[in-house]
């Protein structure tokens, strides 16, 4: 087994203390203010749903956290330590991984190759060659890929040697998630992971997300599907017009309240809500 397979990422911080905190995140595209000072937090071992109507700024916030966009203003803290996130590499260095809606897998490569794309392990002892020309350690890749997929408990995947092109949507989603997890991440951002999936496959992905949560990852879950949000999330952050509306405990709210907050906002406790 892989050395990481048995160890969870651990609850280093107390469960109630936030792991990742963003304060006053602003992002402007030309004249459009996509994010006008958003606060956001997520704890370890928690699924934080991020909801809002189209154009509320969910995806923008996610991309700022993942470093795909660099925010115009805003502070980020990981376990109370201030960090800067300007590029995807910064985010990856801090253990923040994003799974995009379109997954970005190479269908012509096998599962193991996809999971380690861009950071393939190479054999030792070829130091005289530049790194990109050293022989791949594909067996190590295969072993680690199996371990990562095993952690998500995706039982329908028989082999990591098959091409991704031959897999179902749910399996691909699981591989994209496993790729994010395989990179020593503590924060996993999921953008509409079940949008294109059938019932059984959705169940599979939600189960994988629960397994991740139970392993102590901090998970941010964007979705339009209220049923999924209420099944999987522990808390719900509602955004509207690029600002915060409120944060709800999932157990103490209901779909109607969330939908109203998404579409009309609430008057109190939401200084940025329009």
């Amino acid at each position: 087994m892989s050395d990481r397979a048995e160890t969870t990422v651990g609850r280093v911080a107390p469960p109630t203390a936030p792991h990742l905190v963003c304060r006053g995140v602003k992002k402007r595209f030309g004249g459009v203010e996509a994010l006008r000072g958003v606060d956001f937090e997520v704890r370890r071992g928690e699924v934080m749903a991020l909801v809002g109507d189209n154009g509320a700024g969910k995806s923008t916030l996610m991309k700022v956290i993942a470093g795909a966009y660099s925010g115009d203003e805003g502070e980020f803290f990981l376990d109370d330590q201030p960090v800067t996130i300007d590029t995807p590499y910064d985010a990856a260095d801090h253990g923040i991984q994003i799974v995009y809606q379109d997954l970005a897998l190479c269908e012509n490569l096998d599962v193991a190759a996809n999971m380690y794309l861009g950071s393939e392990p190479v054999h030792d002892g070829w130091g005289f060659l530049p790194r990109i020309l050293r022989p791949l350690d594909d067996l190590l890749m295969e072993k680690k890929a199996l371990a990562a997929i095993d952690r998500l408990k995706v039982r329908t995947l028989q082999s990591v040697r098959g091409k991704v092109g031959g897999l179902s949507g749910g399996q691909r989603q699981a591989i994209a998630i496993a790729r994010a997890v395989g990179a020593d991440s503590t924060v996993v951002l999921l953008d509409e992971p079940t949008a294109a999936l059938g019932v059984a496959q959705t169940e599979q992905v939600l189960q994988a997300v629960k397994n991740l949560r139970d392993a102590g990852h901090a998970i941010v879950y964007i979705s339009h599907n209220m049923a999924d949000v209420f099944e999987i999330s522990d808390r719900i952050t509602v955004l509207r017009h690029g600002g915060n509306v409120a944060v709800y405990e999932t157990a103490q709210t209901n779909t109607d309240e969330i939908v109203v907050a998404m579409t009309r906002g609430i008057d109190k406790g939401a200084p940025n809500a329009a």
Partner: protein
Amino acid sequence: MQPDQAIKTEAMQIKKASTISWGQRFVMMRESRFGAFGPVLLALVCIWAYFGITEPVFLSPRNFYNLFMQSAVVGTIAVGITVVLLLGDIDLSAAATSGVCAALMAVLVTNVGMWGPLACLIAIVLGIVMGTTQGMLIAYIGIPSFVVTLAGNLGFQGLMLKILGIHGAINMRDPFVRGITTVALPPALGWALAVVFVAVFAWFSLRRQARRRAIGLELDTPTALYGSIAFFAVLALAAVWTLNSYRGVPLLVVLLIGMTALLGWVTTSTPFGRMLFAVGGNQESARRVGISVQRTRVAAFGIVGLMAAIGGIVGASRYASVSFNAFAGGPLLLEAIGAAVIGGTSLFGGRGSVWNALLGALVIGSLGNGLDLSGASAADKLMFSGAILLLAVAIDALSRGGGNGGR
């Protein structure tokens, strides 16, 4: 449950529920590591069988020797073109590039009196520069490769004519350059090389299997493992036996197989190779994982330039002269692209192998050679070549499930 156990039981369940259609089986076979050889090898066997029956001299060792030599230039360039095809790009200037490099080398050796190896080295460097320059225009300025290399093709044709001067052809008598295609290895050395080749292949396969067992990964089936070793052993020994009964294994064949092995290894077993396949398969995903799409593209075009230059030197050596029609003006470019495609490399990127390009070159070479022997006209040859190309691409499209717009 341990993961390997889980995999085993699941694999067994799959075996039980074995309702796999022939079509799927064919696709699965194509996806396997050596299975991709299938169609092009089958085409080669069919062509050899057909001409072997109609023209018995076709299967003589002497003819095989000539066949390998004839296919070498196309094969070398096709191997290079395969690398850019993997990216989903194309290089229409490869033949003209090889013409320019050959012409420069010929001028340096014949007119300037330069030492042969040095002239070859300069030609190779020129080829790499020509390739990377085009690659930079494609990668950083964003001009489609079709356009850049089409312009390159025209420009390089003109450049070649300029270098050749008013005579339009330069004869090659340099012993080093000629030696590349005239030297044949002594029979004993040929056998030794074949044995070493097979032993190395077997050692790598068996060691890999042992490592798989040690780590606890699913194993290759013994049929596949020993079958592939036996297959390569038979192939290598039969080739050496055939060539030894004429003049011995040509040095050129050894060089070509060595270069292809090197490039094959780079494209399949290194992070750089993964970059090529990733960019060809899904450029956006490659970019997101931090692969520099631009640099990958420039490097790929550099490799085409390198292989084109080597092809030019081989051609100059083989024809004992450098003339416009033998390179830029002739069918060399389309034969090289055809060889890569017949080998099963996708024009849309992400699928293919340099070894298959070599086999594709042999298919085209065999067809030309066989039709020449049976006294076919130039018209027949062209039509046959077109039909074979179409057939190869059709087999390729069908093997991928077909109907998806030819991807």
